[in-house]
């Protein structure tokens, strides 16, 4: 029974951590994309002839901004599916 409580504790903390990882990551990425998108639209409105040049760079930067967030999401999903932190617990319990 004590083991179940420990597992529940680890899973509970992991769930909170997953929420924080994805939430804050999404926050940062969205602010970044928002700033970049607004600047792109401003620039496109001022100088429409530069749009093809800027568009490629915008997509490049969008990918770069998204990357850290998506790495976080991948990590979070990994922890959600197969929690490696539990393995030491089950090892200590002698399974």
């Amino acid at each position, binding site marked *: 029974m004590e083991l179940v409580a420990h597992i529940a504790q680890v899973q509970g903390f992991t769930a909170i951590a997953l929420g924080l990882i994805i939430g804050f990551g999404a926050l940062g990425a969205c602010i970044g994309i928002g700033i970049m998108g607004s600047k792109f639209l401003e620039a496109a409105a001022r100088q429409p002839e530069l749009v093809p040049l800027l568009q490629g760079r915008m997509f490049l930067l*969008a*990918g770069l901004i998204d990357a850290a967030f998506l*790495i976080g999401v*991948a990590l979070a999903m990994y922890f959600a*599916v197969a929690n490696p932190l539990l393995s030491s617990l089950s090892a200590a319990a002698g399974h």
Partner: protein
Amino acid sequence: MASEPQGGLTEYIRHHLTHLKPPHVSEGGFWSVHVDSVTVSLVLGVLFCLWFWLLARKATAGVPSKGQAFVEIVLEFVDGQVKDVFHGDRRFLGPLALTVFVWVFLMNAMDLLPVDLLPWATEKFGLSHFRSVPTADVNMTFAMSITVLLLVIFYSFKAKGLGGYMHELFTAPFGKWFAPFNFALNLVELLSKPVSLSMRLFGNMYAGELVFMLIAGLFSAGSWLLYGMGIIGYTVWGIFHILIISIQAFIFMVLTIVYISMAHDHH
């Protein structure tokens, strides 16, 4: 999912995250090669070479066929990107950028196949684990980015010579009185390149693959409503993923070009 082991969504996803390894090797040992990643990437690489080579052989100066026009569009797009960044002899960097772009794109595009298609097909031959996206394997992306790192080091030596490169490593950016500090700084800069390059591609593809698997879990949830939501979700995420895989292939190519052309710059 009919052929999957029973045990719910977690077991389903864990099953799909297991690589195909050669039998009778120790787990995590040197020879526990991920056979699926290596096979799929090699097949795609050979397909890409054959495809472009055949069309390049038949190329005419007259009215091009649709295939030739497509190859020309890809080639000119990549060559334009290289031309923008790198001012010098493009005979090596151009083909390298083309290879990186098309190969990474094809490997990413394996994500657009249904997640169960290739594992289902290989299960008919008795191979129970098969991951079809090579770029969602961290070994694959690190192999590519470390190759880029070796090329950066090679071109640094080639462009600046042994003395010039060593001089730059130890004296940029703070002058010769800070030599150890400069060297540590430059080493971190050099080593962070392959890590960020590969982790970016891996993170994107791994997260994408996992989302596909989570959506695919809806198909076996047992209700028609969830089944319909699964189909809609799979379609929407698939369409969004077309954008992601192209952008990631593009970024990998552009950063490869930028890193190698930076290796040519003198400080």
